[in-house]
């Protein structure tokens, strides 16, 4: 457990040490992407300066060093999310690619006409569109678990939707638009009880709480490096080995084969089967450094600090005239989505930016969530481990300016 103060943590993120529009930068668009600590930047730089080469192929020292650094990240990821085996970790570009991999490989092999895939009303487009595409092609039906006005899934409706027709359940762990932490353990268990396979979209949870895929009981789990203080262009898909072993490749190319002739190709075992082509070598290694960084802080410390800040921020925002929080689930992670009576989210974001505060305005790639709450967009401040109470105070001051202007 870390003994660092949040101010000390903030100091290790170079990009945060600057001013924008003449004001100290307050970065609160962390649900979109997080900033990188010096240790991750050093890792990328060191690797490029000292060890860079291709992986898995070269019969020379440099490539062997690169390969061993690259492969070592698999073990780090496995340990970080408590997977049983390293070979259950597949390197991907990010959450989007991970879900597309599962939908296309597992989905196209196993889904038949009349089968049902269950997702939730608060999914990111990345966990909607790949399923829509596959369902449409094979004649399966996509069903949606509804949510209530607080932004919590209605579990009775989930159980009512679940049947022996349900073949796959794919839900988001933490909603990027609302902050809701979903009861994924219960959902995965229920899925299993009807023989369905489950995926948990961990894009928004992995940097903010302890993830244990075995305890969760999910069959697949996906996350993106760039949301856990690592580089963009990398991520991981966890899959239970038994399932991965039975899945066909979804992209063909180098590295994913055992032998190739023009008559027949034998595919490599997972994870290589799903890693065609030269991977994002440096970015994957940087993801390993980000995992080391988070582990050194301790995920319990991270979760506790962020929860404290979320509660501080929630109380502070509620004091602002005409502000309505969107998403008030009893279990929430660091997302403050809101609308103001007098100002449109885009005007809010532009004006608070003028005060140095970077927040997002829009539908957050979750248009069905906006439709559910009957709003075109929200303004969203999303928290990370380097955000302080002073950051929240700066946001509150900026929002009062918005109210003054309108």
């Amino acid at each position, binding site marked *: 457990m870390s003994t660092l103060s949040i101010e000390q943590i903030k100091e290790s993120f170079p990009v945060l040490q600057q001013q924008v529009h003449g004001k100290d930068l307050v970065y609160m668009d962390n649900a979109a992407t997080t900033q990188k600590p010096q240790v991750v930047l050093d890792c990328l730089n060191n690797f490029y300066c000292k060890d860079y080469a291709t992986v898995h192929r070269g019969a020379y020292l440099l490539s062997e060093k690169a390969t061993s650094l690259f492969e070592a990240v698999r073990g780090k990821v496995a340990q970080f999310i408590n997977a049983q085996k390293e070979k259950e970790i597949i390197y991907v570009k990010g959450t989007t690619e991970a879900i597309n991999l599962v939908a296309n490989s597992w989905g196209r092999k196993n889904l038949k006409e009349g089968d049902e895939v269950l997702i939730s009303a608060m999914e990111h487009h990345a966990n909607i569109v790949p399923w829509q595409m596959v369902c449409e092609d094979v004649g399966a039906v996509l069903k949606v678990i509804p949510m209530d006005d607080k932004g919590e899934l209605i579990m009775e409706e989930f159980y009512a939707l679940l049947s022996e027709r349900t073949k796959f359940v794919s839900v988001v762990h933490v909603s990027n638009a609302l902050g809701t932490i979903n009861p994924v353990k219960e959902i995965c268990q229920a899925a299993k009880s009807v023989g369905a396979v489950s995926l948990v979209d961990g894009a928004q949870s992995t940097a903010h709480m302890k993830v244990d895929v075995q305890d969760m009981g999910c069959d697949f789990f996906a996350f993106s490096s760039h949301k856990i203080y690592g580089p963009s262009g990398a991520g991981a898909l966890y899959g239970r080995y038994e399932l991965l072993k039975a899945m066909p490749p979804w992209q063909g190319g180098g590295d994913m084969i055992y032998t190739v002739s023009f008559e027949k190709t034998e595919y490599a075992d997972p994870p290589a089967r799903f890693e065609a082509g030269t991977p994002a070598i440096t970015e994957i290694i940087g993801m390993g450094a980000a995992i080391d960084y988070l582990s050194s802080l301790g995920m319990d410390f991270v979760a506790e600090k962020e929860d404290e800040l979320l509660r501080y921020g929630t109380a502070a925002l509620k004091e602002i005239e005409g502000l309505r929080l969107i998403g008030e689930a009893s279990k929430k992670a660091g997302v403050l989505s809101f609308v103001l009576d007098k100002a449109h989210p885009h005007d809010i974001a532009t004006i608070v930016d*003028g005060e140095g505060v970077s927040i997002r305005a829009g539908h957050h790639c979750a248009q069905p969530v906006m439709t559910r709450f009957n709003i075109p967009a929200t303004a969203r401040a999303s928290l990370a481990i380097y955000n302080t109470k002073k950051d929240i105070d700066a946001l509150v001051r900026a929002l009062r300016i918005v109210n003054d202007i309108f």
Partner: protein
Amino acid sequence: MAYSNELYQQVILDHNRKPRNFRKIEEPTHVCPGHNPLCGDHITVYIHTEGDVVSDVSFEGSGCAISKASASMMTESVKGKTLAEVKKMFEEFHGMLMGELDVDQDQHKLGKLSLFQGVKQYSSRVKCAALSWHALVGALDLKTEISTE
């Protein structure tokens, strides 16, 4: 003085609060919905022309202050103008947003529409200011040099 006040000037805020010509025209000669999927802004422009003169123009919809104020001020500016004048005004307005026309240096007939010059510093907001204008020229089917993507 806060940086953003350059954008949120009193006139613009006033048009946002009390948009002019914010109504439907019952029997328009032209209608065009404008939609910005990025921010969820929806603005429909209604036009009535007599000969080649815009005799009435109005709008409905919802959006941010910039898109609403821009639509409101647009309706005031183009009412009574000929189609050729409207087209010219659109090109000037668009040029200003793209930083190609400097309203302080170059000749133009934008009048108070030049208040929107601050928008050009916010690339993500240019579409907000341009939305109603694209709907307008789309409705009138005016061939302009400018692509609307």
